[in-house]
């Protein structure tokens, strides 16, 4: 009886939640308004026709950076507020400590019909918002003669950064615009490697595995590789073997390819032979600490961690270290990290104001300032020299500046994991049902694991496929 009543109460509450959840703003362009402008504008001409004079629009920017960076962003936005001729006032707000926090908050705000004007979002998250009709394609804004980017501007941006925001799930719509990027690099202990008889970091996986196993001495807590529970590590390995996580057209997950099988088999072997150590999920940045302590030879991690690694080594075991491209089979490959900034559907005027804020943040002085203060890569090629020279002068970076400078040469090999909606649960599958299984079970069939994982991932992909009319 109690169970029956409880079920009724729960059904009622779930029903209410479902009704609230259904109140989502529609995204398909509206009927043309004054001046033939739809919302969102679909052509550069429509964007050109928008007049911002006297509108005094306020733009709210949600991000996930700490207070120190919030102050930096706001100082740049204050400059924008002073100099833009349209009276636009931009304000930055911390919406969370992680991309996930921001994602949760935005989803709630979308349901409430009160999204921010712009927000930081990974490509797959932007695709999820787009599926709800909440973010807009920036192509018409970028191409606008009056408000867009010139040919010189576009050439100045690192091409791969711009390409990474063109979403294959939505016919190449640009659901975000880059204001920062980083890449996954291999950190290595140069002194240790030399002691093992290697004069340079391994360029192929066979040599890498051999060096890692040579370095390992579990009795003394020394290991060749620190394994992180991060699907991006797996993606890097797949890329460097010529494979992909998602097909180029975004229609299917393909990480069960031979490149995926080889990568996973190698991880399994590394643990079977005790050449790698697992960093527990709760040990945040544990790989960094162990590297600094001289306990692991290789770590794959974001280039934005360079100053942290420098400090960890300096305060830790004090040795010579550096970064390099991850090993590869035929052609180098590197995993591109970094979220973009998306514009949410509001009114054509506010959308344009939001775009102008993003455009400003991507200009050379701003991208230099951001990169110098955060360790991310600037988005413009013309900013490269300024950032490197700033790091060379900064004692906090010191010799790491040289390593940072080399990353720019590697950008030609950059690849994107998966920009489609629903990739976050797929990442969880890769970590928990694939990588975690092989590190604990030396006999599990890696091909079957990957096939099963890809089948589940493709199911998620289908569930998150673009809905018609949005």
């Amino acid at each position, binding site marked *: 009886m109690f169970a029956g009543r409880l079920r009724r*109460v729960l059904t009622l509450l779930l029903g209410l939640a479902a009704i609230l959840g259904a109140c989502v703003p529609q995204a398909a362009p509206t009927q043309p308004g004054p001046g033939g402008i739809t919302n969102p504008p679909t052509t550069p001409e429509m964007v050109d026709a928008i007049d911002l004079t006297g509108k005094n629009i306020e733009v709210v920017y949600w991000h996930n950076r700490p*207070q120190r960076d919030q102050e930096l962003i706001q100082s740049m936005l204050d400059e924008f507020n002073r100099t833009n001729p349209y009276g636009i006032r931009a304000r930055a707000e911390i919406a969370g400590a992680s991309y996930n926090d921001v994602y*949760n908050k935005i989803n709630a705000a979308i349901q409430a019909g009160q999204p921010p004007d712009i927000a930081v979002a990974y490509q797959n998250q932007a695709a999820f918002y787009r599926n709800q009709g909440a973010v807009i394609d920036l192509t018409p804004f970028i191409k606008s003669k009056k408000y867009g980017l010139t040919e010189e501007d576009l050439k100045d941006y690192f091409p791969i950064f711009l390409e990474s925001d063109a979403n294959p799930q939505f016919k190449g719509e640009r659901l975000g615009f880059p204001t920062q990027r980083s890449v996954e690099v291999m950190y290595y202990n140069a002194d240790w490697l030399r002691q093992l008889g290697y004069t340079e970091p391994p360029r192929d996986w066979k040599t890498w595995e051999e060096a890692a196993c040579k370095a390992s001495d579990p009795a003394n807590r020394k290991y060749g590789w620190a394994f992180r529970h991060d699907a991006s590590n797996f993606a890097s390995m797949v890329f460097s073997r010529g494979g992909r996580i998602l097909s180029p057209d975004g229609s299917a997950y393909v990480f069960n390819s031979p490149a995926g099988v080889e990568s996973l088999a190698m991880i399994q072997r590394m643990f079977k032979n005790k050449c790698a150590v697992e960093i527990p999920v709760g040990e945040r940045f544990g790989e960094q600490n162990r590297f600094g302590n001289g306990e692991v030879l290789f770590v794959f991690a974001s280039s934005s961690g360079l100053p942290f690694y420098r400090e960890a080594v*300096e305060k830790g075991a004090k040795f010579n270290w550096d970064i390099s491209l991850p090993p590869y089979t035929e052609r180098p490959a590197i995993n591109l990290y970094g979220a973009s900034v998306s514009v949410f559907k509001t009114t054509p005027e506010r959308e344009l104001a939001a775009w102008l804020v993003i455009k400003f943040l991507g200009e050379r002085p701003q991208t230099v300032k951001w990169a110098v203060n955060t360790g991310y890569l600037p988005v413009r090629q013309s900013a490269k020299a300024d950032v490197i020279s700033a790091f060379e002068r900064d004692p906090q970076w010191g010799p790491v500046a040289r390593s940072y400078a080399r990353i720019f040469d590697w950008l030609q090999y950059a690849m994107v994991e998966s920009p489609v909606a629903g990739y976050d649960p797929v990442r969880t599958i890769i970590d928990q049902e694939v990588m975690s299984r092989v590190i604990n079970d030396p006999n599990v069939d890696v091909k079957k694991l990957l096939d099963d994982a890809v089948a589940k991932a493709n199911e998620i992909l289908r569930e998150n496929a673009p809905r018609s009319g949005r």
Partner: protein
Amino acid sequence: MNRLLDLPVVRPVGLRTFRPRPPAGRLIIYLVLMAGASLSVLPFAYMVASSLKSYGSVITNNLWPWWPLGDEPIQWQNYIEAVRHTGWDPHWGTWLMVRYFANSLIVSGVIVGGAVLTSLLAAYALSHVELPGRNLVFLGILATLMIPGELVLVPKVVMMFNFGWYNTYLALTVPFTVSVFGIFLLRQHFLQVPRELHDAARIDGANHLQYLLWVLLPLSRPALVVIAVLNFIWAWDAFQWPLLVTRDPSMRVLAVGLQQFMVGEGGVNTHLLMSFATMMVVPIIGLYFVAQRAFTEGFLSSGIKR
């Protein structure tokens, strides 16, 4: 008077007096309990110790870098650095940490006050007032305990936006001023109070409110302390909700301030994070010590273990 008590004590000649020895089984139990207690304290000790170490000592897992095992001075400046790290509040002209602290106190205070008051009134109505469908209402209230918080999170945030409460103290406090657990705990407690007290008070002319205030309330002090302490801890530690419903740093609470130390993809300043976390838990520990006895009594008298 008991004459036996006046008799002189005569000790048998040649016999020594023995103190009763604790049996070996009890000794083992004590040892196990002590080990368990030490294990419970370990994370706390680690947090405090890390807050007083340099970054280098934290990452090298140096358990005791200070005298006599090491030569590192105690890093008191970590606390100052952690406060500075939170940023400056131009409105109050102070570090944001002060603002976070004040907000946490305000929010926790209002939530505790609200939860205690609503629990008291609801529990009384559900235990002492003859209402049609009373038990059904109670079941309905209890059922809400079984709905996962994640399920109602988004609808609740949507409500805050729609009420115009976003980024206000109302959003931070009002949704938590009713505690289902508190209602349940107090109702169970009220049902244990002899019914005769209620009847006697009614015969003496007391109305419901008078009986609640003058008779039940003094008897329910331990249960109320439990509700107050638990709600205080929940409110003090809350992270996700305050993050979702606020936008200005000046509206945020300590737990949200703690996230300042979790830098995105690069790394984390563990020593500063631990300093901030230590400062954050001090009031909770203080509160527990102050309310310890009543807290334990409350759980014992209501027969609830958590």
